[in-house]
């Protein structure tokens, strides 16, 4: 159950087909694991996203009930943070750093290349559901720019050719 988000994509396939009841049960279980922690909401949401790859629509209601919060509070938190996703991602997620250090090393052409190759824009998933594309603001690899992260694998000094290898 321990996987990382960003980068939970690979596990999604295993979970499609979960029934509502099963998801509810999983959410309750994760809430139970973290309930003793003060300010448990972020760890809980991460736990759910790590398990399912995203936060399904029933998350807000279910978590609110379990943690004794209002549904609006939980929804407010989910929508505030860029890395909580409310839709299932593709099998793998490519995060491209858009920050200044990567811009200084020409990430623009790289971004254009990926958009064209995958035929999607940021925040979208390919038709075959293999890839989602997300912008990210700094991977901390600024001395080896431009940088991308494929699921939780960091890559530096990325060229269009290198990116093709990664995606093929």
């Amino acid at each position, binding site marked *: 159950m321990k996987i*990382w*988000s*960003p*980068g939970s994509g690979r596990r999604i396939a295993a979970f499609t087909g979960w029934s509502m009841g099963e998801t509810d049960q999983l959410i309750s279980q994760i809430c139970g694991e973290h309930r003793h*922690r*003060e*300010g*448990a*909401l*972020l*760890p809980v*949401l*991460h736990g759910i996203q790590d398990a399912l790859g995203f936060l399904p629509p029933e998350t807000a209601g279910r978590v609110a009930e379990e943690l004794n919060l209002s549904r609006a*509070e939980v929804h*407010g*938190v989910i929508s*505030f*943070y*860029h*890395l*909580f996703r409310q839709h299932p991602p593709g099998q793998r997620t490519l*995060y491209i750093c858009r*920050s*200044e*250090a*990567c*811009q*200084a*090393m020409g990430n623009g052409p790289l971004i254009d290349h990926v958009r064209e190759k995958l035929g999607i824009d940021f925040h979208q998933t390919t038709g075959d559901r293999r890839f989602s594309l997300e912008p*990210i*603001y*700094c*991977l*901390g*690899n*600024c*001395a*080896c*720019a431009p*940088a991308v*992260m494929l699921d*939780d694998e*960091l*890559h*530096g*000094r990325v060229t269009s050719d290198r990116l093709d290898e990664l995606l093929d």
Partner: protein
Amino acid sequence: MSLLTVWMSSLTDQSRVYVPADSAARSVGADGVARSVEELGLPLKRPGSRGLYWLEPLLEVDSEQGRIGFGPLRPEEVHGVVDETGRPNLEHPRCLGPIERFEPLSCQQRLTFARTGIIEPTCIDQYLATAGFTGLRRALELGPQDIVDEIKLSGLRGRGGAAFPTGIKWQTVLDAPGDRKFVVCNADEGDSGTFADRMLMEGDPYCLIEGMIIAGLATCAEQGYIYLRAEYPQAYRTMQAAVSTARAHGFLGGDICGSGRRFDLELRKAAGAYICGEETAMLESLEGKRGVVRFRPPLPALKGLFGEPTVVNNVISLATVPVIMERGGEFYREFGSGDSRGTLTLQLAGNVQRGGLFEVPFGLTLREAIEGLGGGTASSRPLRAVQAGGPLGAFIPESGLDTPLDYESLKSIGAMLGHGGLVVFDDTADMGALARFAMEFCAIESCGKCTPCRIGAVRGTEVIDRIRAGEDPDANRQLLRDLCDTMVEGSLCALGGMAPYPVLSVLDHFPEDL
């Protein structure tokens, strides 16, 4: 001779090969190089990175002269640099010689980063063998006030951006009434061009843990949190392993080193909001809420996490505490210039030949940093601008390069040192696009609490688009300046309050682009 050197020289019995496991080194192929070493049947160690990122993947081999460095290497080159008996090939074109004497490293003053790149990060024995937890043992013999005094004496100022004196912050927390106090480590490192926090957490996690325990002892706090950015999965895993090992060895928990004192730590993963690097937004986030900035007063030092007195410090501030406690505040303050004492963890990034981390005393100039340490632009084209201090920092033109790198000097030219990152741009940079990016970034990352930031940044992006499209440029430039003024004056925190600086710096220094 430092303990580090003693320890390293005790390792000559069998020649070992070192290939960093730092995520940036791995991002450019260190794992492949490590596999080649294993194929040769040589004993392999995976420390953090030295921070000489332009040489990654960097391989080091033990020899009578200390470790010999080679880099950057491809996996297929490994058999050419070291033979099956582990002897380094000093004639190889990628040979850098004894790495400790290699100038980009030997010219540094490694205090906070003394062990990073040398020891294996989660091996607590190696940490202990290199003076690890010595500062803590000393702190355990002192009372809280004595620890605070030592930190005050060192002149340490926060490395997260605001440069507030750490000792004074700790004093406030120590003096604050309350049975429950917290130490929170800000490991949200959101600024582009910075990676020192990541490098330290991946390379020397116990050093941060030790700093946090000392902060706890100094302020009578018994619980710490590390708020770690989600974009750093490997740093998270390394810290997690180190926290549980430290606990198993009695450095964390109910009875630190048998002293009867208590301190424990919990790691919390952030979720990709830049504003959560701002300390009060971070506290909200730790409490399980939206990362919305709080009004002050009250100061977090008085009413911080869960309403209790809280120390909030950056990773590098906290990781510098052990060496101060070990060697004394007097020793630490010897380095530096003016009111910027100690060492600066300078990070060179973007279009620069030798990108990486350089720990140097404060006071060298931007030019010395970029041209001297950094070797100029990576593209070998003329430099156009440098952005210091992350996305809210001004773009400094070539004419500003003789400014010394310390907090006050950079401030005097309208720039800031921030977390110590410099992003270099060559003459192909489109400064208008960068100004637009600054506004767009602010719009995306605004916490939404104040209108000038939330709405102003969106309008600012639109106005820049109009200028760039040639629509009534003079009037729109004036409008943009007015908007920037409103944001600077009317924003609660530095996101809305400083995002205009890069924009204004483009208007002032690069008018041909905007």
